[in-house]
């Protein structure tokens, strides 16, 4: 589990070791089973990450393997984070120590939840994701550079040299992360005059006149 502070400000790059988690359609019930949602703060969520999958695999789950202890770049396959909209899922991953996710594709609500927390979810081609997962498995101690400027993930292997894979992120979310404006509340609050104008033209807020 991580003691790294949660993100703040612009996020242009992250460096850390990789954690491959193969499998399609990994839903948020698996990321954090519902019983861990019984809480009024997110502080203690790290213990619940993949709790059921981990107990099923009795120590052999990627989140338990010693070689991945302290890893912070999660590498997943397709439709990661589908299912329930619970923000507890990215919160739990972040509190465990994940700071970037690379995958074939992400469920929309999960992607949005992550963005709002400053957790970049980058997509890559299926073949590249598989290669990246295999490269991490082969050399779990190597550092990965997740570079949002260059839009690449770079595996930095001291002996075998570096290997890079292109990643994708829509321009909007990318700009938000790079500029540090991923926490959108301030922007929304700033448009109060426009908000009032929109509300005053909505029939259902004005007696249907």
């Amino acid at each position, binding site marked *: 589990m991580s003691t790294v502070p949660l993100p703040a400000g612009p996020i242009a790059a992250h460096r850390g070791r990789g954690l491959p988690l193969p*499998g*399609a*359609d990994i*839903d948020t*019930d*698996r990321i954090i*089973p*519902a*019983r861990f*949602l*019984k*809480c*009024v*703060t997110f502080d203690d969520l790290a213990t619940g990450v993949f*709790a*059921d*999958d981990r*107990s*099923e695999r009795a120590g052999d789950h990627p989140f338990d393997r010693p070689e991945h202890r302290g890893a912070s770049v999660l590498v997943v396959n*397709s*439709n990661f984070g*589908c*299912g*329930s*909209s*619970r*923000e507890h899922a990215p919160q739990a991953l972040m509190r465990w120590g994940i700071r970037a996710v690379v995958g074939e*594709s992400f*469920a*929309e*609500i999960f992607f*949005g*939840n992550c963005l*709002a*927390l400053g957790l970049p979810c980058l997509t890559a081609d299926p073949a590249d994701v598989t290669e990246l997962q295999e490269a991490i498995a082969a050399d779990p101690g190597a550092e990965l550079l997740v570079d949002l400027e260059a839009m690449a993930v770079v595996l930095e292997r001291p002996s075998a040299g570096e290997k890079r894979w292109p990643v994708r992120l*829509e321009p*909007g979310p990318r*700009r*938000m992360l790079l*500029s540090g404006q*991923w*926490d*959108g*509340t301030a*922007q*929304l*609050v700033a*448009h*109060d005059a*426009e*908000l009032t104008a*929109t*509300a005053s*033209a*909505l*029939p*259902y*807020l004005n007696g*249907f*006149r």
Partner: protein
Amino acid sequence: MSAGTLYDKVWDLHRVAELPGGSTQLFIGLHLIHEVTSPQAFAALRDLGLSVRYPERTVATVDHIVPTTSQVRPLADPLAEEMLATLEANCRQHGITLHGIGSGRQGIVHVIAPELGLTQPGMTVACGDSHTSTHGAFGAIAFGIGTSQVRDVLASQSLAMAKLKVRRIWVDGRLQSGVFAKDLVLHIIRILGVKGGVGYAYEFAGPAIEALSMEERMTLCNMAIEGGARCGYVNPDALTFDYLQGRPAAPSGEAWDRAVAWWRSLASDPGAVFDDEVRFDAAAIAPTVTWGITPGQGIAVDETVPTPEELDPDERPLAGEAYRYMDLRPGAPIAGTPVDVCFIGSCTNGRLSDLRAAAAVAEGRRVAPGIRAFVVPGSEQVAAAAEAEGLDAVFRRAGFEWRLPGCSMCLAMNPDRLEGRQISASSSNRNFKGRQGSASGRTLLMSPAMVAAAAITGHVVDVRALLAEHPPTVERQPPLTPALP
């Protein structure tokens, strides 16, 4: 790009501003909150020194963690009690209406908002729960959101959203008797896949959709999210207006007539342009049951569990996982699969018409020995209406437990849960691994009538067979009329 659809019209009406990140700031007309996804949002609001921008547009209830046996306070589970108390304190502090236990209006958030008339055509609706898509049944644009977004809506009554594409799902024909909206939506998800709707809003239209009751439309839209669509909707029509008229939060008097005229104008234009269209034939759909670990892994009740060869190559790895987890053999018929627990309830199928359909099967029969079967009404109003027509007695006589309203074993955050490798027949919406409270528990999704039939026979069975041998004596009745002060 879509044009002239209800989605386009509602989107345009609610636009506040374009944001630097490329998304649009959208006004949220109705914000629904509950005890699980709101406490951290209120805490964040306090940290930012912000207040609730439109407290009168936020409505709260308690549903996810409430027990269904005794709801006497303080609740037996101290964590559950803390969550209720936190919501109560937050609502008090910010002047938000809370429909709590015993108010006569408490229930699953997606059940109570429609029955109170809060959900109306043309609104944008948001709630920290993925099944917010339910409200699309009224021609509202409704999405599930995460806790940061709950904070955003509290602070600004708006959300940063990217516009979706619109796919029209046109359904011809009529559902056969014994086949329900649940079967229709499980079939649609089976064909289009759990990812098929990613990036889309689903417009459900066509003769079969127009023939659905409002409650059936809610079941359909509820599960749009299980097909990957962030929201699903049905264009408002006379049925929608009939349902709304007289409900506590619905307009009345002259405002009612103006409202109906406006609501009508929001329906997709005859020449509306869709980004995509798919067609189904309702008459060809049979009662549908899931065999796997996603809602897309469904088959007709008379089919066999698909073999790997029958599936697309990219579906095979997940199917392999599902065979192992569910302990079902490829090629085996799904009918006859024994079940342990039968659950009727949830925001998908916990409304009065669902309970009537299940009661019609249970009436005059007995739950099979060894089966635990229970019915959880979706709200206090549903419970009262069902009790008024004696459905609780029908269920009790048949050996079902009759419970208090809440989400219950849909996600098992309360004491209702599967144990060990138990297998349930469930009228809820998710069959994910561990969803119903046991890490190895298994779920077969189906309609409430099919769940009742499974309870009676002890295994998966085509409900039409039971209905044929002993036709329902519980009459199909007009929709629930509001009976509130």
